[in-house]
């Protein structure tokens, strides 16, 4: 009997030691993450150049807008938004998609070097993965004020998961994705490339699954023939890659003030060529989507497509995100990197319109059901323009993203390690 008690005690002690070891190991792991000790002073202390002043000013204004927008929302609820029963998804959904597309895109770019082993692209891995973390956090910050009950969401997402819902899969997979991105980033900081590769690969696969699920949120809408089908889930992955390349140019251009070292030049020229191919595929996709939508004049689809072709936001998307960058790439066969920096800024504005159009166009056509009196006249198109609160929260998301990136760039070494 006594022996048994002793044995049990020994096992317990061993378990305790193991537990201690695990806690100690975790503590040691966290304490050895390389970062720069910075204070408020360091954050406020930046090079006083016009471009830096401009961005600092923009961040402060955007964050102030975020606070005003959120307070207005907390007081008035969804009434502060211009969303209606006929057009329940507005600007904030589009901005959420914009941020998570950026995140997935940066994850793809970050994976080129440290997951797929393309040496030329390793220099941007850490920066891109960090970018993917801050963009998705900004996306979550925006969507938190669009979802009516975010706390309920967290609880019932777990307690009663709707497994047939694309939104459930998208949200859950993005949560897992964020975790893997953070772990990958930590391993990159520690220069543990083997672990970074494993977590990066899993993170990438989860991210792609999450992102195509976001496309399927629209693709699954049988009630909306303009969005229904396989197009959006695949198109989302393509446009994520394109967005990732645009942001890479912006990040590197900002980092090196448009005076690139040779290795950055080599990488960006490679990315420009990839971008040329991707944008060409995108134009091909969009052209065929439009043609198949219009062909045969199917009700609720053809007319919506023709309406889209007549909207300026569609042409903003085409010109800013497709034609301008493609022209810059083709003109010098991808060698005009400075030009691509500016074209990427244009591209990101175009990508914003792309997201806005996707959300708005889905809801353009009223479902009608003969409620003609509701509209006074026979309804043709649902109108929507974002309210000031929606615009303020959206810009606030951008401010948050820029602030997090700036603090991160002070806190961590986002450049490639010299041992590369």
């Amino acid at each position, binding site marked *: 009997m006594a022996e048994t008690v002793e044995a049990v005690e020994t096992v317990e002690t061993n378990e305790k030691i193991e537990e201690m070891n695990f806690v100690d190991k975790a503590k040691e792991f966290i304490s050895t993450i390389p970062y720069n000790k910075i204070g408020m002073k360091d954050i406020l202390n930046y090079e006083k150049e016009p471009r830096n002043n401009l961005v600092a000013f923009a961040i402060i204004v955007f964050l102030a807008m975020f606070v005003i927008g959120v307070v207005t929302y907390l007081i008035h*609820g*969804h009434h502060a938004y211009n*969303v209606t*029963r*006929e057009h*329940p*998804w507005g600007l904030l959904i589009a901005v959420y998609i914009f941020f998570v597309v950026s995140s997935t895109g940066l994850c793809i770019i970050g994976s080129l070097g440290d997951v797929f082993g393309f040496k030329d692209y390793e220099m941007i891995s850490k920066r891109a993965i960090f970018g993917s973390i801050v963009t998705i956090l900004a996306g979550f910050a925006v969507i938190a004020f669009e*979802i*009516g*009950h*975010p706390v*309920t*969401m967290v609880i*019932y*997402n777990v307690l*009663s*998961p*709707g497994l*047939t*819902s*694309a*939104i*459930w899969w998208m*949200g859950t997979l993005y949560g897992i994705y964020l975790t893997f991105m953070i772990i990958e980033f930590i391993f990159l900081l520690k220069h543990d490339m083997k672990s970074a590769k494993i977590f990066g690969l899993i993170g990438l696969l989860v991210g792609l699954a999450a992102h195509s699920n976001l496309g399927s*949120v629209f693709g*699954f*809408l*049988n*009630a*909306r023939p303009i969005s229904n089908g396989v197009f959006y889930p695949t198109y989302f992955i393509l446009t994520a890659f394109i967005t990732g390349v645009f942001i890479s140019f912006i990040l590197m251009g900002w980092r090196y003030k448009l005076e690139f070292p040779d290795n950055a030049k080599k990488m960006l020229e490679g990315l420009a060529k990839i971008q040329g191919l991707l944008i060409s595929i995108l134009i091909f996709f969009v052209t065929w989507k439009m043609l198949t939508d219009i062909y045969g004049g199917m009700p609720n689809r053809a007319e919506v497509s023709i309406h889209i072709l007549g909207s300026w936001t569609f042409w903003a998307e085409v010109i800013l995100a497709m034609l301008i960058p493609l022209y810059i790439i083709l003109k010098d066969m991808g060698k005009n990197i400075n030009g691509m920096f500016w074209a990427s800024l244009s591209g990101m504005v175009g990508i914003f319109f792309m997201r806005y159009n996707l959300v708005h166009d*889905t*809801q353009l056509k*009223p*479902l*009608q*059901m*003969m*409620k*003609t*009196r*509701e509209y006074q006249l*026979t309804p043709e198109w649902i109108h929507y323009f974002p309210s000031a609160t929606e615009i303020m929260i959206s810009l606030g998301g951008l401010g948050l993203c820029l602030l997090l990136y700036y603090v991160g760039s002070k806190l961590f070494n986002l450049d490639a390690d010299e041992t590369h």
Partner: protein
Amino acid sequence: MARYGMALDYKNCINCKACEVACKEENGVLLGADKHRIWVGANDVKGEWPLLDIASAAFLPSQCQHCDNAPCQEVCPTHATYYDENNVVRVNSDKCILCSYCMNACPYDARYVDDRTMTVDKCTFCSDTRLARGETTTACQNTCPTKVRTFGDLDDYDSEISELLRTREHFSLKENLGTKPKLFYLT
């Protein structure tokens, strides 16, 4: 238990809107939520006098179709939308996160946001009110002066609605979407 549905002899509708009023009164629908939970569709008469198209003047009362294969239930991320024991499509407001996905997915425009709970609401076939009190009719049916509506159990062979659907030709709205609506329009 039951599988509730409704048959509408829509050609008898005179667009008096008593059903809209009764529904609001019974279910406490807020003022302003007009034509959100239940409505009467009205087409303008086509043609030019004297060659008016009389048939085009029909009214089409409608509401949630309580689909057997409801897109709103399928897309709900938290199972806030569910089928109750009578196969009525319901919303549990405690679970609703107001993501509005159901409002976009419903092909019948039958969902709206209730400003009191800030969750999505819809026709419940009076499950919370009249049926809960043991009555067997819905408010819209009970009030209809021309007896357009017949509510009942589709699984009960002897119910009035089953009899009607056996003996009268009928159609459902947007059947091509495969939603299997339980609102039937008698022709």
